[in-house]
Every structure is written in structure tokens, then in C-alpha cells.
């Protein structure tokens, strides 16, 4: 860095040029290396009792954790029993996992639909000429009050479904259905097999039961449905992603 022959030999900031032994007069003890104190021999205090005691407590805590590890050096024991949790160990009184309204209704509705499978089939296509389809049916996709009357009271006589005339006799299923089941069933058939209609909420289904009660018990006909029931059911609208308690079907407020 600097010229070895220059007077910089005397400078304390030793560059390559300088001989340390020569500069040693300038070191004297006021530079960093010189003002250092020497590291002295270690003190010989004994390990104090409380240090041993604390260590013993720490060893106990570690031993408690080690005890959870199964048999020592057991290479065959892999996953700890009960470490992987399934939702079932949640206590009985604890709220069940919330589920989105649409999923819940489809799941429950599919169970109720078991009563309809014989005629309308799992595919929702019915049987050509005998039982009308539900997939793409204007009665299913259309106004919910008419649909609820069909399910609840049955339908007889001529009816046109998806461009085809049927003349059948569907019996009433209302006696076996409560409002929740009716709502789930209607939601299920309105949102399955390519159908893409709105959710029917339990409160709408309850209104349907009311209307049906006022109307009396006989089977409906296509003309009656067109004349007096061609409208949407009144009642609370339920957005499809509302989180519901799977037991009570009440909305659960998710923490924000």
C-alpha cells in the first residue's frame, strides 16, 4: 500500500511496509492491542447447588417429554397412537364442523330423494313416456311454490314437461316431509344433474307447508298449478355459502 522507504514507517497504522518490532516503540500501550487487559486464569468457584437443582428440574421436564416418545430407540414404532386426529374426538356437546348451506342441503336432499328414485331415477331423467325428467324440467327449475305443491300433494292428469306430454299420477309425499327435508329435497333437485337454480331455504319450505295446509289434501293438476301457484315461495333467502350447523341448520357466525 505505501512506499517502504518513506517516513510512514513511523506511523502507527501499520501498513505492509512497517516492521512491527520497529514500530513497537510507538505501540506503548495506547493502541487497541496495547490497552487490552490480559485474560487471566479462570476462577475456581464450585458449581453451586441451585444450578444443580435447576438442572435437575430441567432434566425432569425433558424426561417427561421423552416418556411420550414410546419405548426408547424403538425403530418399529412410527406414528404415535392418537396423534393424527379425526373430527370424531370432538366432544359431543361441542359444535359440529360448520358446513356451507348448499353442500348441507344437497347431502340431506339426496337422502330424501331416495323416495323418488323408483320413478325419476338416480340420473334425474325419469323414464321416457312414463315418468317425466327432473333434469332440465321447467317445473323444477321454475317457480318454487308450484314445485313444492307437486311434491307435497302429488299431481294427476296431463302435464307437459320439457316439451313432452305426460299423463301420469304422482302420489303425495307431503305427509312424510318436514320443512327441512322439503327444503333440502327441493334444493337437491334444483341443483343436481346440471340444474342450476336457487336454494330453497327452510323458511320457504315452511311457508310451502302452510300454503298446502290451506289448500286442502287432494292431488294438484297442471292447470291448478299454473293458475294459483305459479310464483316463488315467500321466505328468507339463504345465500348458498352460509355456514350452517349440521345439526340444527342454524347459521354459525364464523369468527372474524
Amino acid at each position, binding site marked *: 500500500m505505501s512506499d517502504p522507504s518513506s517516513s510512514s514507517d513511523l506511523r502507527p497504522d501499520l501498513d505492509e511496509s512497517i516492521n512491527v518490532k520497529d514500530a*513497537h516503540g510507538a505501540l506503548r*500501550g495506547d493502541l487497541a492491542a496495547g490497552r487490552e*487487559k490480559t*485474560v*487471566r486464569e479462570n476462577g475456581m468457584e464450585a458449581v453451586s447447588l441451585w444450578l444443580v437443582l435447576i438442572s435437575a428440574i430441567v432434566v425432569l421436564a425433558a424426561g417427561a417429554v421423552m416418556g411420550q*416418545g414410546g419405548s426408547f430407540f424403538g425403530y418399529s*414404532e412410527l406414528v404415535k397412537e392418537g396423534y*393424527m386426529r379425526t373430527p370424531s374426538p370432538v366432544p359431543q356437546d361441542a359444535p359440529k364442523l360448520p358446513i356451507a348451506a348448499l353442500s348441507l342441503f344437497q347431502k340431506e336432499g339426496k337422502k330424501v330423494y331416495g323416495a323418488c328414485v323408483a320413478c325419476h331415477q338416480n340420473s334425474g331423467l325419469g323414464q321416457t313416456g312414463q315418468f317425466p325428467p327432473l333434469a332440465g324440467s321447467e317445473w323444477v327449475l321454475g317457480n318454487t311454490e308450484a314445485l313444492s305443491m307437486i311434491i307435497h300433494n302429488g299431481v294427476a292428469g296431463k302435464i307437459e314437461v320439457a316439451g313432452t306430454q305426460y299423463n301420469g299420477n304422482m302420489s303425495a309425499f307431503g305427509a312424510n316431509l318436514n320443512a327441512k327435508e322439503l327444503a333440502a329435497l327441493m334444493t337437491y333437485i334444483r341443483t343436481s344433474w346440471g340444474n342450476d337454480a336457487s336454494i330453497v331455504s327452510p323458511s320457504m319450505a315452511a311457508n310451502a307447508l302452510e300454503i298446502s295446509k290451506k289448500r286442502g289434501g287432494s292431488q294438484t293438476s297442471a292447470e291448478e298449478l299454473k293458475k294459483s301457484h305459479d310464483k316463488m315461495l315467500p321466505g328468507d333467502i339463504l345465500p348458498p355459502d352460509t355456514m350452517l350447523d349440521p345439526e340444527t341448520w342454524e347459521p354459525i357466525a*364464523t*369468527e372474524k
Partner: protein
Amino acid sequence: MAETNSTPDSEDVVLRSSIDRSLRHPVMFLFASGALWLVLSIVLGLVASAKKHNPEFLTCFSWLDAGKVDAAHMSAMIYGWGSQAAFGIIIWLMARLSRKECTASGVILWAAHVWNAVVLYGVIRIMMGEGSGVTYMEFPSEVWPLLLVCYTIITIWSLIQFQVRDAGHVYVSQWYLLAGLLWFPWIAVTAWVFVFLMDGHPLMIAGVAAWFKGTLFTLFFLPVALGSAYYLAPKVTGRPVYSYNIALFGFWSLAVFGPWAGMQKLVGAPIPQFLPYAGAASMILILIPAIAVGYNIIKTVIGNSELVAESPSLRFTAAGIVLFVVFGALSVFLHTVPALKLTQFSYTGYGFDVLGLYGVFSLCAFGAIYFIVPRITRREWLSRRFIKWHFFCSLYGISSVVICAVAGGLSQGQGIEDLSQPFGTMAERASQIGWGVTLAWAFLLFANLFFCLHLLLMWARLGRRSSHPTLLDAHHPTSPHGPEGEVDNYSSASA
């Protein structure tokens, strides 16, 4: 003052200066490039943390994707900053304690350049999405042999110095340094062979990587930090280490418990069941060396509280040692069986790692750097204020990490465990913790910008030429730097 005769004391001074002189280039290079890497890693940490609560942040750069920037952040922190600071401390301290000049500083300097180039290459490969994806070993496989060769070239001279030292007492710091020097290649080679060379089961790779992550701290960074603390505390105070017996106890307890650390990260994974629990137990047992070392160092410096406040080296070292005890105490709580579940997938584990790497290791390393640099550059630190800001911002940053990540992470962990709530609820909670972590990195960035600038100025030999060290005393007697002393008057004195 004109004692020019060769008393043993002045011979000591000459020997010290010649050792410092022989090592100044490699050590300064390691420290300065380490400080630059630290700033870079904190910037990356800031981006990574911001992305956790604001996923839209900087999405326009694909090389800053969350996974890449997180990996680059930790790799730069460990291999850019931590390792290089540790190497600088090891080679300087080992030379001093073995009382041998370094004869290979050119080779070390060259290897340190290669190390930097290799780390840079590795970080760029990570940013390109070609990292290995193994925790703490994110660089692609070809990087590791190069780093190991560089490590050997940089540190082998310290082993040689230890071997050829004049027979005598082996000082406490030397135990730690020697142990760290030998442990690092052991864990690194083992991890490299099992992760990259052998075509093993992915679970085995995950297990070995977790072990490497745990032991890299307990068997490399921790011994270097403690070795430095055991040197600085008696050196600056001029008092002997309080107890040789406690030092032995602390060293051997770390040596026995340290190698088991790491696999607690895999609790619940289908690996032999005792492994994660042994890891957790060893992390609990870390409190024993922490208390032993903490007690010993504090007992050594106590009664010199003025010196602890004034000397930057001692202040950083004491803070690092206190945080080591905090680390040990937290470790007991975080590794009990109920807490393990809460720490595994939450911010807590990350915060705890940062507490170890920054709070314990880096603070001790800063202490050592504040001590070593004036000796090898023959200049005093420029600004007390820079050092103070570095210290306090570091403390604020580490406090934020402990409060937000470690404590807040527990509530996040509970959110993950609560099956009656949807996942989004927990994520919402975690994003608030994320803000706190971002704040912590902002503090640390601020602190280390000052540190890096200060160190670079010292590297450029722009430090104060004074016989008075830069102390952090509160009063301003004559100048902002404290008493100036005889500034650069040696030529007149010897003339």
C-alpha cells in the same frame, strides 16, 4: 511512558499486534461481506414477511415468489452472514488464543471470496426457482461440496494453530471454537450425504434436514457465540471467568444435548417415534448450558455495570448471553408435548429460530466485531450513535420477534388446532402476527444499515485515529466521540 525495553508485557503487545496484522485482510473481508449479506437477507426477510400478510405484494416479480424469497432470506442469513461472521471470529480468536500469527491469510482471503461467490450463485439459483427445497439446505446440490472445500480452506489454519500452540492451558473459548470447528463438517457432511447423495426415502431426507437445521445452531453458531463471550467478558472487564467448573459443566452439557436437537420439527410424522421426542427433550435440556453460561458470564461482568454500558463489545455480548438464557427458558415451554403441536406449523418456530440466530448468535458476533475491528484496522469506531442505534434497534427488533412471532404464533397454532373454526379464521389471525414480524424486520433493517455502513467505513480505513476507544458513555464531555486523546501524534512522539 518511554518504556521501550522488552518487558514481557510489551512483547505481548507486539505479538498481539502482529497477529492482528496477519489476519486483518481476511477477517475484515469476512466481516464486511457478512454485514452486506445480513442487510440483503433482512431485505429479503422483509419481503418474505410482507408476502405472508399481503400476498399481492410484489407479485409482478416471479423471482420474488413467496417460496423463493423465504428460502433466499434464510440462506443469505445463514451462509452469507452467520457463517462468515463465525469464520472471522474463529480465525481471529483462535490465532489470538493460540498465540500464533496466521501464515495463510492470502489463502483464507481467496477462499472467502470463493465462498461469497458460491453463496451468491446459490441465492441466484434459489431465486430462479432451482433451489433444492430442503430446509436450511436450499442451495442446489452442487453448491455444498464447494462450500465445504471453502470452509476447510478458511478454518484448517485455526486447527493447525491450535495444534502447534505453545503447550499450556487451553482456554474455555478454545474448547468451544475447536468443538464448533469439528462439529460443523460432521453435521454438514452427514446432511449433504444423506440429503443429496443418497437416494433415500423423502421422509429420511426431511428428518436429516430437520436435524441439520437444529444442530447447525446448537453445534456451530452457539459454540462460536459462547466462545466469543467467554473471551470478551474477562478480556474487557479484566477479571477472570467466574468459575472454571461451571464453564466445564456448560460446555459438556451443550456437547451432550446439542447433537440431539432438530427432529422435534417432525413430531407426528411417520418416523421412529422416539426421534422427535428426543429432539424436543434435547431442546428443553438446552436450558442447562444456557443457565450455566449465562450465570458464569454475568457473574464475570457483574460489578462492572458501567463497563457493560460503555463498551460496545461487552454490551452486545451481555445482551446476547441474556437472550441465550431467554432462549433456553422459552425452549422449555415451547418443546413440552402440548406446545409442540402449536409451534410446528405456526410463526412460533420461525420466531424461535430468529431469536437464536439473531438474538443469541448475531448479538454475540456483533460484540466480537466491535472488539476485533479496531484492533485489525488500527482505527477506532467512528460514531457512538451508530453503535447505540444498532444496539437499540436490534433489541426492539428481537423483542418484536419474541412478542409477535413466538407468543402470537401460539395463538395461531391454537387456531390451526381448533377444528370448529374454518381455516380462514386462523389465517386472519396469522396475518396480524405477520404485520408484527414485518415490523420486527424493519427494526432490524434499520439497525443493520447503520452497522453495515459503519463497518464499511472502517473497512475503508476511515475510522478515527485515536488512542481512545469509542465508548458509549452518556455524557458528551468535549466532542460527540468522547475524549479524543492523542490523535495521530505518534510520529511527533517518536521523533
